[in-house]
């Protein structure tokens, strides 16, 4: 396959292009479909319409309705048929239209997709990349703003990743689609429309990281580490900017892979800063922040100067648009968390 990719690459425009995340993902999907004729894109409204977020725009026209197709309105069906297609040797890249509509597919995801490789003793791999427009922040109707990473990360057999920028999205999706295991690809829909420069060359992802695995430090700092993913990364960068005005240097770690978690990167960063705040949109209890806090509390036990703070959504159903800003960690709440870890004194 890499030969084909080589060929494709030569026809690509110059490396740095300005793309929104939605465009970056669209471009990545096009390249994947181009390079791998077993790749299929399907889901609700991904064909003629090009997806409710236009992420699959133009793909059906380009690759045909046999490779990019609309399914009936049934998420369990989408995942179940994806599994069957993988058994038939295809590389399905299904979409679930919104985070909150992945729940009907949870049974197929957990009992089938995540287990088929195991159950079959490796004879039936599941190279399925499930795209899920995720997280909140767009004043959408109910169930259109949810964070399922904790649910997915708990499931043995799944890998979970969430890009925070167009650059990440483009490269991580291509990487995920090349993997022989199921990957849940959580797209932060609040960031779909923000443009940024994307380097289309391979292996140029993240600030200084040459790897598509693991986490990335997106801003170095020394007083505390903000750990985030998805849309919370840019919010944490804003917080770091503000804090810098007061002389506080916050490191921002984009966790990126939510399963497996890059434990080494977490430990390395917090060993340096000795203080950590994990930030996420999903509810607090049993959120992925608990896992991060537990890992950091263990690996940095000797050096931590304050308990790991968790600034998260509350243990309430994701609220309606009007209350969204009260629910999602906002700059103030994150700053309060920073303040708590900085001012912590042993009792």
């Amino acid at each position, binding site marked *: 396959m890499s030969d084909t990719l080589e060929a494709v690459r030569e026809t690509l425009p110059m490396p740095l292009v300005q793309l929104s995340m939605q465009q970056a993902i669209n471009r990545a999907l096009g390249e994947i479909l181009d390079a791998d004729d077993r790749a299929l894109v399907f889901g609700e*409204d991904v*064909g003629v319409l090009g997806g409710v977020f236009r992420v699959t725009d133009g793909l059906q026209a380009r690759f045909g309705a046999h490779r990019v197709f609309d399914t009936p*309105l049934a998420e369990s069906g989408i995942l179940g048929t994806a599994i069957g297609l993988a058994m038939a040797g295809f590389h399905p890249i299904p979409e679930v239209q919104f985070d909150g509509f992945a729940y009907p597919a949870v049974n197929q995801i957990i009992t089938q997709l995540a287990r088929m490789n195991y159950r079959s003793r490796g004879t039936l791999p599941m190279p399925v990349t499930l795209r899920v427009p995720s997280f909140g922040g767009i*004043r959408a109707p109910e169930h259109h703003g949810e964070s399922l990473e904790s649910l997915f990360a708990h499931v043995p057999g799944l890998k979970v990743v969430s890009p925070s920028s167009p650059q990440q999205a483009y490269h991580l999706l291509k990487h995920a689609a090349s993997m022989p295991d199921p990957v849940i690809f959580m797209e932060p829909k609040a960031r779909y429309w923000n443009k940024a420069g994307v380097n289309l060359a391979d292996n140029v992802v993240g600030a200084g990281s040459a790897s598509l695995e693991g986490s990335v430090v997106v801003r170095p700092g020394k007083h505390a580490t903000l750990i985030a993913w998805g849309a919370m990364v840019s919010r944490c960068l804003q917080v770091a900017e503000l804090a810098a005005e007061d002389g506080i240097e916050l490191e921002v770690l984009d966790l990126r892979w939510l399963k497996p978690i890059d434990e080494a990167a977490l430990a390395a960063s917090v060993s340096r800063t000795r203080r950590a705040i994990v930030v996420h949109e999903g509810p607090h209890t049993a959120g992925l922040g608990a896992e991060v806090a537990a890992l950091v509390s263990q690996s940095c036990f000797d050096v931590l100067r304050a308990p790991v703070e968790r600034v998260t959504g509350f243990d309430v159903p994701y609220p309606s648009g009007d209350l969204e800003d009260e629910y999602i960690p906002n700059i103030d709440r994150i700053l309060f968390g920073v303040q708590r870890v900085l001012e912590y004194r042993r009792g």
Partner: protein
Amino acid sequence: MAPRALAATLDTLPPPVSQLLEADASAPDPAQLRDLYRMLSNVRQLDRDAVAWQRQGLIPGYAPMLGQEAAQVGAGAAVDKNRDFVFPTYREMGVAYTLGVNMVEYMSTHKAIWHGGLYDPVATHFAPFQAVVGGSVLHAVGWAHGQTLNGPGASVYAGLGVGLAFLGDGASSQGDVHEAMNFAAIVKAPVVFFVQNNGWAISVPTEQQVAGGSVAARAAGYGMPAVRVDGNDVLAVLAATQRAVAHSRAGLGPVVVEAMTYRRGPHSTSDDPGRYRTLDDEKIGGGEDPLSRFRKVLSARGVADAAFFAGVDAEAQQHADDIRDGVVALCSRPGSEMFDFVFQETTPTLGAQARQWREESEHV
């Protein structure tokens, strides 16, 4: 392509149980006929205005029901508000209106004030606004089975309360809908599955959605009767729904009603139908406007004239304006309500979170 409303009819509902039918399905008298038009006109106006409100920035989004007025008003008018219970989706504004739900409270969900809407579902017999496609269909079955368990004696009327589950052609693909129909048919729950087959699930046409072409046709497989009806003919919808309700009310079990209609507008205010259908498609698929059709019927029967229609339409505009004022005046709910309604009995953890939220958010 022919107008969808003219799709082959199907009617396997046995002849009505006369005694019970009387209460439910006496043919509408002139006053009732005029009332139906009044509802259609109000719903049409409010729907059009809500789309405008969105364009004006008053509400962030809306799911128009343009073209489905007859289906919704006809179905809603067959409901007994005292003992039946409606389980809507996100597009049943017309049913809500017909049931007398306060429309400002209803519209609050489109203003992003509260997901379920601010209306009281218990008082209105109209379940909360539901964004999960197919999500409430099973609730209707459970509720309806509850009426059987209560027994007819629980009501002052003869017959059972009936649950009305609203669903679309797209929703019919969901596993839950199958589970609901099977459950209902097994326990003979008094539930009417009211399908608005409006030709589309966002961009996907019914032909690519409903194998076999008809949700009503599936009823036979569950041993359930069904009626497929011209969903743009308000009297036909009313009559079919009344018959279905009467059947269920009599304890004879569930019924599928499939109203063939057409979603004339976009899926929602953020949709762009031009990407998946032409204006010609819309014209042909939609057929004659349900309101103008009904105006002709009323005129032909001598029940109403142009002056009546003009008066009602003007009144509808006034109502819509009043509702707009109410929607403008709608304030955000206090953030504390995020915590207040999670449980009937809150928990220490949640109490602590509410306190922290108050400290960090309210006083900043």
